[in-house]
Each structure stands twice: as structure tokens, then as C-alpha cells.
């Protein structure tokens, strides 16, 4: 979660946001949010209803907890990305942030007529002359 905190400005500028969810009670979650200085809400599924509905409930540990998992949900409720963390495979946080940035970039390109960057051509020509 520290990774998402560090990269939250990028997530926000890509037009996205984040929330964390666990089975912890509000007081415990609020303590964690403060401890990690999380810039996004922390939700409390104390009844384990959502973790069960989403198929990521781990009943074998600590009285029943969530399996670490990451989803990207778009405004039409469509799941764009889903990954459940296992011992063998960790959910790649960097990949998630870059996918959000790429999605935002793709939207911008679609909206705008592409103009070639003339300044880059000039720079390339100058560099080749200097060499």
C-alpha cells in the first residue's frame, strides 16, 4: 500500500483513484491509515460479506481475512484488471500504475489530432551534426 501512496499523484492525474479494503474494524483501519499516511479511504468489511462475494475470503487464517488482491474497476462497473496475490506470484503494483497511465494517455490521443513534435526533429538533427 505504501507503493500506491507514493504513486498516488500519478494515479490521480491519470483520472483514477484508490480505496483499500480489509476485514478490520474502523478504529484499527483508521490507525493504519494514519500510520501509513494513506491518501485514500480504507474500507471495513467486518462482516466479511464483500470478501466472500468477491471470492477472496481466506477462512484459514486469523479468524478469516482477505487474500491480498487488486482490481481496477471502470465507471461502468467493468472489471479492467484482476489479480489475487499468492505466495508464488505477487500483484505487480508498478504494472497497475502504468496501465492506468496508459489508459489515460490512450484516451487523450483519441480525443486529440496528433501533431508531430517539430522541436524533437530539430533536436535530433542538431545532435547528429554535433557528432
Amino acid at each position, binding site marked *: 500500500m505504501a507503493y500506491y501512496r507514493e504513486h498516488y499523484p500519478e494515479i490521480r492525474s491519470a483520472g483514477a483513484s484508490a480505496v483499500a*479494503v480489509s476485514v478490520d474494524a474502523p478504529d484499527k483501519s483508521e490507525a493504519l*491509515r494514519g500510520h501509513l499516511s494513506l491518501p485514500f479511504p480504507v474500507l471495513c468489511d467486518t462482516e466479511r460479506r464483500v470478501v466472500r462475494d468477491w*471470492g477472496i475470503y481466506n477462512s484459514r487464517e486469523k479468524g478469516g481475512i*482477505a487474500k491480498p488482491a487488486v482490481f481496477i474497476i471502470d465507471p461502468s462497473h467493468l472489471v479492467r484488471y484482476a489479480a489475487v496475490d499468492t505466495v508464488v506470484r505477487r500483484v505487480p503494483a508498478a504494472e497497475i500504475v502504468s496501465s492506468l497511465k496508459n489508459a489515460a494517455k490512450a484516451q487523450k490521443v483519441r480525443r486529440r489530432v496528433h501533431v508531430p513534435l517539430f522541436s524533437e526533429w530539430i533536436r535530433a538533427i542538431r545532435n547528429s551534426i554535433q557528432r
Partner: protein
Amino acid sequence: MAKVPIAGELAQEFELPDSTRVLRRLSELISHGRLVLLFYRGNW
């Protein structure tokens, strides 16, 4: 137990209190753009 949603499926709506006991709905959280939904182990 329910199946983990995969890319291309629709996410099930939910409502949960946040750490300040304010109720949050999924539909409200996704109303302005994509949402990264992070489930963590908790209960350490």
C-alpha cells in the same frame, strides 16, 4: 464461495463503512473514473 471476478466481467455493487464510519458505495467510488480496489490481509 463466490468466484473471483476477472477482467471483462461486471463488478458486484457493495456498500461498506470507511475507517471514519462513513458509508461508501462502489458506484459512488467509480463515478469519477477508474478505481484501484486494494484488498489487504489486515487483522495483523
